[in-house]
């Protein structure tokens, strides 16, 4: 009996270890990003990195300015949200409130297909279809622009936004809708004044995580953003997002060189961005979870 109790406890311990691995992995990732990224600041000023307006890692002397890359990332993400938020929320409301019951599961499955397409396939599609289209429509010398990247990132953010927002809307108690309808509200008034506000925390989470999806996406922006490290001021010019810069330059950076460390420093920025986005989403969810409206 005692042996059995001991066995039970050690099994429990093993499972706990497995569960704790996620924490360990997260810590390891931080450890290695900081370990390889911080040495940059032995030779290069932190402020020159954070506020630097030029990214020229192979120039003499090299310049490792974060701003053009960070703003490039934010710029394409902003553009993606302009497309994905109205369409995604519209589709989510359609699925949750308007779609006939028989169609609902099919629509959700189709949206999931959008999430399953590999990012390199999106990138390829954008390269052969969207880029030439943008070039021709706006009479540009090259079609690889922030707009091309935003268009495809917008589509990639759709499934996150649609499924999470749809979940939030479906989670609103039936009684809310029935009460509004009984008071004489039209179906649309019920949706707009009752259902959507009640699901607002879930809907905001959906948008935030959609933004996270877009900002962390690598392959598509690498293939179609044009990769020019300039501070963006228009959607019709090329940009060089953080993710794409890392993917494009790690291969050529000499191990242990300032350039190599600078790319890990970009990784730190990206990691902190994603961490911030996730914590914000989690805070929003937990804040409203217990609230009975």
């Amino acid at each position: 009996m005692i042996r059995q109790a001991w066995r039970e406890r050690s099994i429990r311990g093993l499972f706990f270890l497995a569960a704790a691995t996620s924490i360990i992995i997260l810590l390891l990732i931080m450890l290695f990003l900081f370990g390889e990224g911080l040495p940059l600041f032995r030779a290069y000023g932190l402020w020159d990195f954070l506020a630097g307006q030029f990214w020229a890692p192979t120039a003499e002397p090299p310049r490792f300015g974060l701003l053009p890359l960070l703003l490039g990332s934010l710029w394409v993400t902003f553009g993606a949200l302009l497309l994905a938020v109205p369409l995604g929320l519209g589709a989510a409301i359609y699925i949750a409130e308007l779609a006939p019951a028989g169609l609902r599961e099919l629509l959700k499955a189709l949206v999931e297909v959008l999430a399953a397409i590999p990012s390199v396939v999106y990138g390829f599609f954008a390269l052969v279809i969207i880029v030439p289209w943008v070039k021709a429509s706006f009479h540009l010398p090259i079609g690889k622009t922030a707009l091309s990247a935003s268009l495809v990132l917008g589509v990639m953010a759709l499934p996150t936004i649609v499924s999470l927002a749809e979940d939030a809307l479906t989670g609103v108690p039936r009684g809310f809708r029935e009460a509004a309808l009984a008071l004489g509200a039209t179906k649309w008034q019920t949706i707009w004044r009752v259902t959507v506000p009640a699901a607002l925390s879930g809907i905001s989470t959906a948008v935030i995580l959609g933004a996270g999806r877009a900002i962390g996406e690598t392959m598509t922006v690498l293939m179609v953003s044009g990769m020019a490290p300039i501070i963006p001021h228009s959607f019709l010019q090329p940009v060089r997002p953080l993710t794409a810069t890392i993917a494009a330059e790690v291969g050529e950076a000499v191990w242990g060189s300032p350039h190599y460390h600078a790319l890990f420093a970009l990784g730190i920025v990206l990691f902190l961005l994603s961490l911030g986005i996730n914590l914000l989403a989690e805070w929003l969810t937990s804040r409203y979870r217990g609230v009975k409206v």
Partner: protein
Amino acid sequence: MRLRRLTQAAAFAFLTLAMAAVLLALGTILYYILARGAGAISWEFLTSFPRRGMTAGGIFPAIVGTFYLAVGTLIFSLPLGICAAIYLVEYAPQGRAVRLIRMAVNNLAGVPSIVFGLFGLAFFVRLLGLGVSILSGSLTLAFLVLPTIIRASEEALRAVPQEFREGALALGATRWQMIRRVVLPAGLPGVLTGAILALGRAAGETAPIIFTAAVFSARLPNSPLSPVMALPYHLFVMATESIFYEETRPIQYGTAIVLLGLVLALDLVAILVRARLRRGRRW
């Protein structure tokens, strides 16, 4: 009264249009890739090696490489993910440690894939000295898909009715006996769904394997420490960096179809398994 109706009609029209636009985006992508790439697919394309500096021939080594990477990923992540889910569901449904673990899982799911690539390079490739290899790539991808597996397994275990557990415990089973003999067998199909989804994800990811596993040209791997060709990386390089990127478009479309077909087929299987689970089970 009229105004209310009009507003409603306009709003519903917008919602319907938004839904249609989402479906149109999906349809356009699938249509272009399938219509333009179908001609490139042949038995020879799937089973032969590239020829004349990648400008002709097939993509067999890339298919093999992707297969090895995906299976390797599952070998590392599946046992770990299932055990983590068992702890979260069966041992400690709440508490501070569990809240922390959940937070870590959620954050891990949000870390950009290129960051996993950087980490894999610094840790597996350099520090552990595994080099650019199947092993480094699989381990990196395993970390990436771990949240997917944990979440799917958790959902599957939660779906097992509480009475099963109570019944087993009432018969005098220990907690571990109950898990092994009752909960796991009942939850297995759901766990399988997570595994299949993870397989698809691992096969389609590019950014984490660029520095850890993939090379543009290689023979078939002969050990876990060999670098490999992989479908997504092959498509990326062919479409952007190769000199003959215009001439080799048919090969690129073909590679895209194979990759897309593989990933979507895995997803379809997962969706069907799950649909059957949710509908057909009469506990």
